[in-house]
């Protein structure tokens, strides 16, 4: 075991982690621990764009953007945070441009902007062009640009280091962050990083679903690490299902495709979104479009022999426009489906896409241990966090924005904190013990359960029971199944017993995280007896502001006899200027 000492440690090198690192490296001795090489992070998969009311191509302002964000989130958004997001959007896009990001340009040479779902002029009047983009590889360009600037700033990376535990030391009854424990993939060695400040930027958790746009590596490690140490997770029942994933594969086809004029059609060729969202049509909010697609499928208007998908039709768009604006996604259709999007519609279905919930933070990125108390030295930003700027449903292009705005804020806040506190918090006794025990158990287990089986069953039950449509019955089925799988997981064993590059072992660890988080999601969803944003209960189809205009806070409790359970609590929503209204698009 090795012990390292830094001022600031950042967990994750996606957009949020690297944006934080650029700030924090200038101000404090910083280490970035990342399980992937930075440029492999899933921010690179983002396609469509990043929202900011630059008003480069038409009238726009940050207040309209704030409103759209609040409405898009079905009023579960903390409005003070949404206002910061929308206001600081403008500088965060300009920051990226100055760092070198090659945005597409207008004829005047300014940053070009395009339409995106849920973004409107003047509080819902009509779609507005607010998304700044670089073809359909905006996330790729953000990730590359941030990495380039990390190289420039000399950011210190520990690549292929898996953070598996959060160290907490209580001082006068208050939980303080003391550092993290990491596993080095190349050697199997365990490292303890003592740090004055830790920032989680470890991304989402989509891999508990089967059909998902998320990478294999998005297994919620950060959320699971803090949750296991008794810290809460907020709004985990809210998960976004993006309307247009490639049928059966889940690979995302950006909403930018509809922003460019793409149309959803059922088997009769009907543009069905006109029925569900007369004004915004195909560009209504994602939860609305995903439900509409499944309604078409359920009512027998789906395409294909099994009627299990619909079409994304781009055939009416000029090939030059597709080549210039959507080169990557049209290539996905060619590579993975053998379809030519110039002439044939693309089969799509909703795909599990984005975790609105996560580690609760305030607007400085400080992690909360209950509704109000900050954990000194602990920060989170990006998809792993819940500020909450996305509420019950994130608007497209608001996440690339979130990682930049709150990545930067967390980076500055953490580094300033490390500079002000004189000494490191003492490490708990035997700091690596939990990880050592976990690794040893998995490596030496002779149990008969296999990781791949449990993961497959988990993903199938999540897709079947807690996806776009949920009921008490389906969620209970999921809760029971997850409990069974968690029990079986205790008997899981791995084939690779080695030390070097043991990805077999790490997949087992990741599965443990997915199981913990799936349970939190299902239990939180069961208790929310209403429909709001991404959480749709067929048995409670309406939003219920009287009882449920509040954030869910889920805590892990361990009884004296070692039994684990989840305790749910609630946190008020911050409302400033917008009163909840019915959401229509």
């Amino acid at each position, binding site marked *: 075991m090795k012990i390292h000492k830094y001022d600031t440690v950042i967990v994750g090198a996606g957009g949020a982690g690297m944006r934080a690192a650029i700030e924090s490296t200038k101000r404090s001795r910083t280490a970035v621990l990342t399980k*992937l090489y930075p440029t492999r992070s899933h921010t690179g998969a983002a396609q469509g764009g990043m929202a900011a009311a630059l008003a480069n191509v038409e009238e726009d302002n940050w207040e309209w953007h704030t409103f759209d964000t609040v409405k898009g989130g079905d009023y579960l958004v903390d409005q003070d945070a949404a206002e910061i997001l929308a206001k600081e959007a403008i500088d965060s896009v300009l920051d990226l441009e*100055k760092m070198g990001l090659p945005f597409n*340009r207008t004829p005047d040479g300014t940053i070009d902007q395009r339409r995106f779902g849920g973004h409107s002029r003047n509080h819902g009047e009509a779609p507005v062009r607010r998304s700044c983009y670089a073809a359909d590889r905006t996330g790729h360009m953000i990730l590359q640009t941030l990495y*380039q600037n990390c190289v420039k700033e000399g950011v210190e990376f520990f690549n292929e280091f898996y953070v598996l535990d959060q160290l907490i030391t209580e001082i006068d009854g208050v939980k303080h962050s003391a550092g993290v424990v990491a596993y080095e993939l190349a050697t199997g060695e365990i490292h303890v990083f003592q740090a004055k400040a830790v920032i989680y930027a470890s991304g989402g958790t989509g891999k508990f679903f089967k059909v998902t746009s998320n990478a294999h590596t998005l297994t919620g490690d950060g959320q699971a690490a803090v949750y296991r140490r008794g810290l809460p997770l907020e709004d985990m029942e809210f998960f976004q299902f993006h309307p247009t994933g490639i049928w059966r594969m889940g690979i995302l086809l950006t909403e930018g495709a509809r922003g460019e004029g793409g149309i959803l059609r059922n088997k009769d060729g009907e543009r069905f979104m006109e029925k569900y969202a007369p004004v915004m049509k195909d560009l209504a909010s994602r939860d609305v479009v995903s439900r509409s697609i499944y309604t078409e499928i359920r009512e027998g208007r789906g395409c294909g022999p099994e009627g299990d998908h619909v079409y994304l039709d781009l055939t009416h768009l000029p090939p030059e426009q597709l080549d210039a604006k959507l080169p990557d996604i049209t290539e996905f259709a060619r590579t993975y489906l053998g379809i030519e999007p110039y002439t044939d519609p693309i089969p799509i279905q909703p795909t599990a896409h984005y975790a609105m919930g996560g580690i609760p933070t305030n607007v400085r990125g400080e992690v909360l241990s209950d509704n109000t108390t900050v954990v000194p030295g602990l920060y989170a930003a990006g998809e792993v966090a819940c500020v909450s700027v996305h509420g019950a449903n994130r608007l497209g292009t608001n996440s690339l924005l979130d990682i930049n705005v709150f990545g930067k804020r967390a980076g500055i806040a953490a580094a300033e904190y490390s500079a002000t506190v004189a000494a490191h918090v003492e490490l708990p006794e035997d700091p690596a013990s939990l990880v050592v025990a976990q690794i040893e158990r998995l490596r030496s287990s002779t149990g008969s359960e296999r990781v791949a089986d449990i993961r497959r069953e988990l993903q199938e039950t999540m897709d079947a029971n807690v996806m776009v449509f949920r009921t008490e019955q389906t969620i209970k089925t999921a809760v029971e199944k997850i409990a069974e799988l968690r029990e079986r997981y205790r008997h899981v064993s791995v084939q690779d017993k080695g030390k*070097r590059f043991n990805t077999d072992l790490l997949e087992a660890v990741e599965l443990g995280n997915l199981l913990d988080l799936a349970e939190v999601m299902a239990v939180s969803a069961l208790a929310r007896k209403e429909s709001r944003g991404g959480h749709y209960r067929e048995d409670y189809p309406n939003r219920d502001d009287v009882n449920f205009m509040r954030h869910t806070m889920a805590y892990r409790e361990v009884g004296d006899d070692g039994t684990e359970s989840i305790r749910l609590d609630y946190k008020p929503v911050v409302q400033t200027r917008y009163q909840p209204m019915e959401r229509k698009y």
Partner: protein
Amino acid sequence: MATPTLDKADGAGAPEAGFADSPYITATFRIRRFNSEVSAEAVWEDFQLEIDPKERVLDALHKIKWDQDGTLTFRRSCAHGICGSDAMRINGKNRLACKTLIKDLSPEKPITVEPIKGLTVLKDLVVDMEPFFQAYRDVMPFLITKDTNEPTRERLQTAEDRERFDDTTKCILCAACTSSCPVFWNDGQYFGPAAIVNAHRFIFDSRDEAGEQRLEILNDKDGVWRCRTTFNCTDACPRGIEVTKAIQEVKRALITRRF
């Protein structure tokens, strides 16, 4: 052992084709294995599996790892050709496992999978990427401007100027190009195509003001002049970047000092 058959593999084009009937074939994957904890030698090992030929090589590797041999080791993340994790030599050509469909590999014969060449193998298909990233860092892959006052708004750039370096912004640093280059195999000191592609991305960006410095770096004995224009890199690039053309443009810029 069943003889692999390719039923209905040619259904591409019509969306529904193929999925309705059982599309499975039996294919053999011949994989180059190396694990220093087990043996100092690398060996070939065959795995047989039932698989839909419209699936990716990455899917096949997962099936082997998950159902047959958990020790099989490779890197991957996004599974759709965007993160650059899984460049490997498949049937003798560098490709991304997640962007290569089995049906395109003549699966009636064993499909060979080995690590990319010219970088030290650490385990199975995993190689040491550090020298590759070092070459990238050496070309100063970041925008350098001399303006003393930061502009308040964005810098202006015409759509044409933006288009000038569009191709080289697509790079995902997968190393398929560099590790397909015979010059790089023979002499690991050569910067390699990927580093040059990333230098190109800045040299031809109208906002950048350090083109001269980067050109000097690439004028070095291990720089662009080592390229013998074999086009292996262009063939290998999963992003369709015209790598050789980019190298040629850098060479030309070195001669004319115009970019």
